């Protein structure tokens, strides 16, 4: 029955998609088998007709000194999330280096994302299905004999939310065309669900720890390491929205980057320090570097994709550690706010040293007032959220629910306000750029050139813009890995020149980009014809004067902009509602775990290697 229904759905959608019927049938069969298998295992386990699931989880539980439903779930979670992270970064790198996918199932990175997210869901389901006895006092009742840990339910929820992003993504692209940016709403669901699942795993780990009781054996070094790793994972998980910036192909204003870094750092590092004690913020930052850096290394130098950098978060971690040396560390909420303030100011300044050193686009001085205005409120609120998270994980009594909920709501509003401001751009009207290309000696079949750029009028760009650059991308991985970002050298007022050979051949898409304050626009230099989307070529002319246009028309040529505005808004609202539900669920879960603390004695003294 299931298989038949799938076939119909897929056949209907394959008209525009071109998916072969045998693929459709094959995948439906896979879906039916996977469903049947999962239901069968679940049914057999709940009725105690199979024992292998119990024995595997028992063995892992004994090894990690945690209840079986925590150990197995978290092991699977850790592996699968790294798999998803790898697939995600690889996918982005392939799109940057090669452009959109050639056809169905053609992109190998998608499999890592899909399997990673599916097993994320399964990891949550395992924690729900495994326990026969009530798994801790916070557990959610399913039937009178079956209770599920809050962390497991939320983990499955995060996985489901991310998985729903896949078909919504397809629908989205069918309506609006392919938006070749990470920040499509459905893309944000895919990565946001995975990123936020780190909060669920921290809940689950804590529920397991609590269920072991006060006389549990001390944690092994490996378990301690995993705890630090969870916070390192939280740092990476909250950083997934920055990936375009990490590759140097951001399609949005640079001023958003410090805000995103401050947000991730404030929440994850404050929570790490307050939960695991002295040094935890720095260790979490180092583990985040290892995770994110390892993936960058595999995707870039090893698999031959474009290189990406990542924030170090060490400055922010240092700030958090120093603030924690003061008596404030004993008052989590005040500490969260003060440390968040520190992260959003000094922490960002320290991070900017790294950004200036390795990223394509350093943060100019002119950007700082607006960057701080956006980052500081967000960092303070995220610091507060981190403090609340640590109180849950330490078994300290949370303030009244109204206060906790208010903190989360204000945080969402602060981020929403900062993002809305960051997305605000203006495109110069009737201004142009005169670009003179000079052919350079090039290998057979290629065409490289240097560029001389004059912006008319010359005062369109100030002395201290975010960038005046030439971006060439989607040139194929074999050619400089398909990405060239050249920040132009300023020769005089409104006069710039390139500093390295610019590719103007083959499948490369090359354009001049400016971002100065809210001004953000581009001028195409060379675009190949693209019959697939009925786009005509923009030839590379030796001298051309072309108007500035919104970058979206060049960078996202695939975008179909001929749709009613309300449709785009409505689709955005659907995604927004899904996201708010997830955040509300995570907030509810934290409150529920905290409300059901059984031992008030441990409320005053934080557990763990707290100083």
């Amino acid at each position: 029955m299931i298989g038949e229904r799938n076939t119909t759905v897929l056949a209907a959608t394959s008209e525009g998609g071109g998916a072969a019927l045998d693929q459709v049938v094959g995948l439906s069969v896979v879906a039916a088998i996977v469903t049947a298998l999962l239901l069968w295992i679940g049914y057999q386990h709940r009725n105690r007709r199979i024992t292998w699931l119990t024995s595997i989880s028992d063995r892992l539980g004994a090894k990690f000194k945690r209840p079986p439903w925590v150990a197995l779930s978290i092991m699977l979670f850790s592996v699968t999330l790294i798999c998803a992270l790898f697939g995600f970064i690889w996918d982005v790198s392939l799109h940057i280096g090669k452009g959109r996918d050639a056809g169905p199932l053609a992109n190998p990175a998608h499999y890592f994302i899909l399997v990673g997210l599916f097993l994320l869901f399964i990891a949550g389901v395992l924690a729900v299905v495994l326990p026969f006895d009530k798994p801790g006092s916070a557990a959610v009742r399913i039937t009178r004999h079956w209770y599920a840990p809050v962390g497991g339910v939320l983990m499955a929820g995060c996985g489901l939310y991310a998985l729903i992003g896949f078909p919504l993504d397809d629908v989205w692209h069918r309506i609006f065309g392919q938006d070749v940016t990470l920040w499509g709403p459905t893309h944000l669901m895919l990565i946001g669900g995975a990123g936020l699942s780190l909060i669920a795993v921290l809940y689950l780990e804590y529920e397991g720890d609590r269920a072991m009781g006060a006389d549990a054996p001390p944690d092994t070094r490996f378990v301690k390491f995993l705890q630090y790793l969870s916070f390192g994972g939280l740092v990476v998980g909250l950083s997934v929205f920055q990936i375009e910036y990490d590759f140097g192909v951001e399609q949005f204003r640079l001023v958003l980057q410090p805000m995103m870094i401050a947000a991730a750092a404030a929440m994850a590092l404050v929570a790490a320090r307050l939960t695991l004690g002295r040094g935890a913020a720095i260790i979490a930052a180092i583990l985040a570097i290892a995770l994110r850096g390892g993936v960058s290394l595999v995707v870039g130098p090893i698999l031959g994709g474009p290189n990406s950098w990542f924030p170090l978060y060490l400055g922010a971690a240092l700030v958090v550690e120093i603030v924690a040396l003061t008596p404030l560390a004993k008052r989590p909420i005040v500490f969260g706010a003060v440390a968040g303030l520190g992260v959003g100011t000094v922490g960002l300044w320290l991070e900017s040293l790294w950004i200036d050193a390795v990223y394509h686009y350093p943060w100019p001085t002119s950007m700082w007032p607006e960057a701080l205005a956006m980052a500081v409120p967000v960092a303070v609120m995220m610091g507060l959220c981190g403090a609340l998270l640590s109180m849950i994980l330490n078994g300290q009594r949370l303030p009244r629910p109204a206060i906790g909920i208010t903190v989360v709501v204000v945080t969402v509003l602060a981020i929403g306000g900062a993002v809305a401001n960051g997305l605000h751009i203006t495109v110069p009207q009737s201004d142009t750029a005169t670009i003179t290309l000079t052919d350079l000696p090039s290998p057979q079949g290629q065409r490289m050139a240097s560029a001389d750029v004059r912006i008319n009028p010359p005062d369109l760009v100030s002395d201290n813009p975010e960038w005046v650059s030439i971006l060439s991308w989607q040139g194929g991985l074999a050619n400089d890995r398909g990405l060239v970002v050249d920040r132009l050298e300023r020769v005089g007022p409104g006069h710039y020149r390139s500093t390295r050979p610019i590719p103007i051949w083959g499948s490369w898409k090359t354009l001049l980009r400016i971002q100065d304050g809210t001004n953000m626009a581009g001028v195409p230099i060379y675009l190949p014809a693209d019959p697939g989307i009925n786009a005509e070529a923009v030839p590379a002319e030796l001298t051309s004067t072309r108007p500035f246009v919104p970058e979206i028309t060049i960078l996202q040529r695939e975008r179909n902009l001929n749709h009613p505005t309300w449709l785009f808004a409505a689709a955005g609202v659907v995604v927004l509602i899904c996201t708010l539900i997830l955040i509300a669920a995570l907030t509810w879960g934290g409150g529920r775990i905290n409300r059901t603390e059984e031992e008030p004695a441990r409320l005053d003294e934080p557990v763990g290697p707290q100083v």
Partner: protein
Amino acid sequence: MTITYGAHHALVLALPALTPAVILVGVVLFIAIRDRRRGDVDADPERDEK
């Protein structure tokens, strides 16, 4: 002649993962709702929670 490009084909790719997930959630919800409809009868020797 128009050539239509088929976006990500994410739907095709996602169904083997999303369908089982949605059905699983549906089954668990069904069990939970059925149990609640039965009311809080304590003396229930049956353990058919699946």
